């Protein structure tokens, strides 16, 4: 433990890695909460894969990868909506078709362009190689995401909980959906370096699901999800550094460990307390 702390003090790359993954952990938890409450976990997976062609093209044209990633991410979200609303194809199928094709296109582009993009690093993340510019991009995204969620908290709550009433109040459900998709894309892009495309969905849904088992208040859930995301990043990075393990995978495993604890021991929804309560009830009645 001391080694890790010393190393953090000593090495700038580790400070940047830690700081970046903490920011990513927080914003993933917050946006992930809305994603799971709206039953869109698969959409999170889809968007994360759909940014690949954008990243590849950005490198090829020498622009910030963030611009291309947002473009293809949002485009895929719109495409999924279009296909599922204008045909008999169900939403999950539309997601499956569009995200795999975007991902496949991305792989072809990466190999074709032989760009400086290292496919392996995009897919699996490499938090220890975070550059200052990446770190500031992540911080910028984090600020934008948190301010937007705070500003539109009421609207996000209502459109997630009761879309019918939201529409009766004159809220634009579709616009808010695409706003959330844009935020989701931003968060995904920010997460590329810490956990990589393949595992982003875990950072989105696992800390949020953990929080969901622990509270009945949305704002508490958002805070807890951010907290679990942050803790997963810190603890994961510690294990990654100490035992020389892949950083993204370690972070995800820590997040899963938190989830398992909540799943077992949450006071209201944990299976242990539930069975204890059931047993007490039976004992009372016999």
């Amino acid at each position, binding site marked *: 433990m001391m080694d890790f702390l010393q190393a953090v003090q000593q090495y700038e790359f580790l400070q940047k890695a830690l700081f970046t993954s903490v920011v990513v952990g927080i914003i993933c938890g917050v946006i992930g909460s809305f994603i799971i*409450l709206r*039953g869109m976990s698969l959409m999170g997976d889809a968007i994360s894969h759909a940014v690949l062609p954008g990243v590849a093209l950005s490198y090829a044209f020498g622009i910030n990868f963030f611009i291309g990633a947002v473009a293809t991410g949002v485009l895929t979200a719109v495409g999924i909506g279009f296909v599922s609303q204008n045909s008999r194809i169900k939403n999950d199928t539309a997601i499956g078709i569009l995200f795999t094709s975007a991902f496949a296109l991305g792989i072809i582009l990466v190999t074709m362009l032989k760009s400086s993009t290292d496919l392996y690093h995009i897919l699996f993340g490499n938090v220890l190689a975070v550059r200052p510019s990446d770190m500031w991009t992540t911080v910028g995204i984090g600020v934008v995401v948190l301010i937007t969620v705070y*500003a*539109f*908290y*009421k*609207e996000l*709550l*209502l459109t*997630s*909980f*009761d*879309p*019918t*009433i939201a*529409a*009766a*109040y*004159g809220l634009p459900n579709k616009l808010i959906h695409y706003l959330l998709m844009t935020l989701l894309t931003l968060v995904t892009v920010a997460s590329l370096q810490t956990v990589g495309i393949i595992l982003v969905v875990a950072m989105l849904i696992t800390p949020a699901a953990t929080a*969901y088992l622990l*509270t*009945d*208040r*949305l704002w*508490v*859930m958002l805070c807890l999800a951010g907290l679990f995301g942050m803790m997963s990043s810190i603890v994961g990075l510690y294990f990654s550094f100490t035992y020389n393990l892949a950083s993204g995978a370690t972070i995800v495993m820590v997040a899963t460990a938190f989830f398992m604890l909540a799943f077992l021991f949450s006071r209201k929804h944990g299976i242990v307390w539930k069975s204890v309560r059931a047993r007490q009830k039976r004992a009372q009645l016999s």
Partner: protein
Amino acid sequence: MEKAITVKELHVSYHGNEAVRDVSFSIEQGSMVGIIGPNGAGKSTLIKALLGLLPKDKGSVRFFGKDPEDMRKKIAYVPQRSNIDWTFPITVMDTVLIGTYPSLGLFKFPRKKEKALALECLRKVGLEDYRDRQIGELSGGQQQRVFLARALVQQPELLLLDEPFVGIDVASEETIVNILKELQQDGKTIVVVHHDLSKAKDYFDQLLLLNKELVKYGDVEAVLNQEVMSKAYANQLRFLQEAEVAL
């Protein structure tokens, strides 16, 4: 005085099928109107079209002589209870506070004044002790009372309720009816989609009998007459018998 609702030549289709055909009527302020009709008669569709939740094929809707868009704040809607995620992390109190959103507008959050109002409305429906419960932990009747409280917080001039008494207990139904009657006495207008004819006579002043087209709109006795009813319910005999019992 302006009519609470004025509908002219309204046509609405639902999933490509004609659901409401050439309906025109107007509802006086301060009245309590039941919308009745057989299954698939377009009752819910009509309400949703009034609120702008479904696109109109043709026709116009005015609330208090104005465009519905301009009246949203003053119109409360209690939809059927089915379209909600009952495991959502929200308490009873926070659900009722949603009713303050239209008047708060963007970037503002409920404060003391709004919370006091929400609590008062919860008290009216008899659920103040449940304010910290998660919404899914309540019974069907209690949930419906919560949604009525949310509508009350809006301090509406017009209330539209879609099958509010389906699947709820007798006590909750009684509470809801009493509150609606109180609101009516305060001059509010109340429109209820309803399918239990046996109580229609006790609850409403006027009935609007719908079967895609408007079959009859008028005082309860005039609508609940055999000839009128058999026109709408030709294919639903059991329902017709209920109506006879009601008379």
